[in-house]
């Protein structure tokens, strides 16, 4: 049942995991705060349904919002040069990460983001996404390998590409 008190009790930890995941993706405190805030708003409004798995749930929502932010930022950066809030390295990192994530399949991206940015376990991801643990493991390893190659500007073997799943 909905329990505002329970939400309030879990708020600090939920904020921590949501903010942490969003920050690792965006590298921007403001964007991480926005994503975490919105994830927590949604969590509060749906508390009765998600309270049992609130941690993975807010990480997932915050991560999705952070990836959306990356997409918007990358699109906007095609037109604007004002990224004074990021260092050149951070800027490049954001752009590279966005480009790399774009190449993954939706499911691969979800798993990679939750596993390596949200710090969720394979079991938590499996429960959150409704997948078999083996499938999560497969998506995670293939997605990670593909990301590494992409970020090093090397060709991605067909076995690691989304359509090869």
């Amino acid at each position: 049942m909905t329990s505002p008190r329970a939400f309030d009790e879990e708020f600090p930890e939920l904020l921590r995991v949501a903010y942490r995941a969003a920050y690792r993706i965006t590298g921007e405190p403001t964007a991480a705060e926005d994503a975490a805030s919105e994830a927590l708003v949604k969590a509060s409004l749906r508390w009765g349904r998600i309270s049992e798995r609130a941690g993975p749930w807010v990480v997932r929502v915050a991560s999705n919002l952070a990836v959306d932010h990356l997409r918007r930022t990358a699109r906007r950066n095609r037109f604007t040069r004002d990224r004074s809030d990021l260092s050149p390295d951070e800027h490049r990192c954001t752009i590279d990460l966005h480009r790399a994530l774009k190449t993954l399949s939706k499911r691969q991206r979800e798993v990679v983001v939750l596993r390596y940015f949200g710090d969720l376990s394979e079991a938590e991801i499996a429960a959150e996404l409704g997948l078999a643990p083996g499938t999560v493991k497969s998506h995670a390893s293939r997605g990670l390998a593909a990301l590494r190659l992409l970020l090093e500007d090397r060709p991605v073997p067909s076995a690691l590409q989304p359509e090869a799943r």
Partner: protein
Amino acid sequence: MTEDLPLGHPAQEPDTATEARVQARVTATVARRRARRRALTTLPVIVVVALVVVAVANTVDDNTGKDRRVVTAGPGAGELAFAPDVEWDSAVLSADGKTLTVTAGRVLHDSRRCQLKVLHDVVQTDDAVTIGLKDATAPEEADAAARVCEEMYTPTVVRVPLDEPLGDRAVFDGVRTKARTVLRLADLVQVTYVPAGFTTNPDDIAAGDSNVQQTYKADGADWYFAVNETKDTAPTDLPGATSTPIMVNDIEGVRITGQMNNTMESIRFPLGERTVTVWGEMQGPPTFTHSDELLKIAQGIRLSETDAKNPASVTTSVPEKATPTTGAPDKTAPDPADCPGPKGSSTDLEGQPDWTSDGYHSWMDRSGCLVRVDVLTDGPGPAHCGYEAADVLWVGDKLGERYRTDEVQELSYVRDPEGVFDLPAVTAAFDPDATLPNAAADTGYHRDGIALHVDPADPSAIWLAYPDGHVERWPLADLPPCA
């Protein structure tokens, strides 16, 4: 534990200030959304349906929606990244239809809250574009913002690139459900006389609900000027203003002096249904000293072509996709024979070289008057050197002045995708699907629906915006000799 990745950003935890801020934010947002849910669920279904119909029809302002996050501005609209809280009135559409410029904060004589910093986000659907603005002025800066607005004109101009040309989509501010006015550059009054060195760009155009201002600046000049046009509202002057009659062409107007301790001067006159005010202000010296130039600028103001056909269009126009023509004169442009410029000007065609017989094109200025080919032209590369597969645009290093003179050098910009000039760097720098840079300005020069854009700070390329919405970047090139 997860593997340490060579990507992403190092982990960071929220500090206590962040935690307090987010907690307050979540509490307020949840309360607001719950209240809205309650309000909606208690309304009879028919009322809800009626509200939705009204919202979609955009016939009224819904001021109750100020705090909402989900934007219902148009069918299929998505969510902005934040709850917009800054209203804006009019957007200016670039010539290629792919950039909207909106103005937040106090605009001219409008009274509203000031912002020093504004966040923006855009949601684009097939039917609507919603540009949300959020006041990001820090609380400790609020007093400064108010003071700045009190003392001077300080709009915050936001340029928003679109994924696709706007077309016939409605535009919303995310706060109100009534569609905002979209102004095309061609709808604004046309400034046909601009002192040497002065330029404007989309960031220098501020649009309020009933007035628009185009500002012109020049590097190193001791003054700048602006052209305001208003409809249905009487412009007000600053303290110290004294009016004296003046004729602008054949129109009775007034010259206004004495404002800002005599550093500012204005010329105001009616034009069609608008009131035009041309004003200049000194950057340094204590007294305004450019009265003659100001009058010339005022005399060169023309009504837009669109406005001449439809006087109401300045506040209601929705852009239409331009269609390319095939070299025929623009139907809406004046007959070039009717608008030769003063002797020696860029539109004084007397004695211009006969290059059009060699395939070089004539361009027109913003007002539709032909420009001399030795001011601006383009055409195929010389055929006798085998360069005809490339196109070259020639213009002076002082835009709008005749080149091949002692003072003005010609610059050549090249479209050479096939590499016929054998200049690999130039071929590589040509972009057939470019994006207008942030600082690019529409020069007003056009031919066959193609608009020439330049970045005043970057002469290494020009951008041509085509009627179908695509933009090409032509790089500057030193062409090989061809006798």
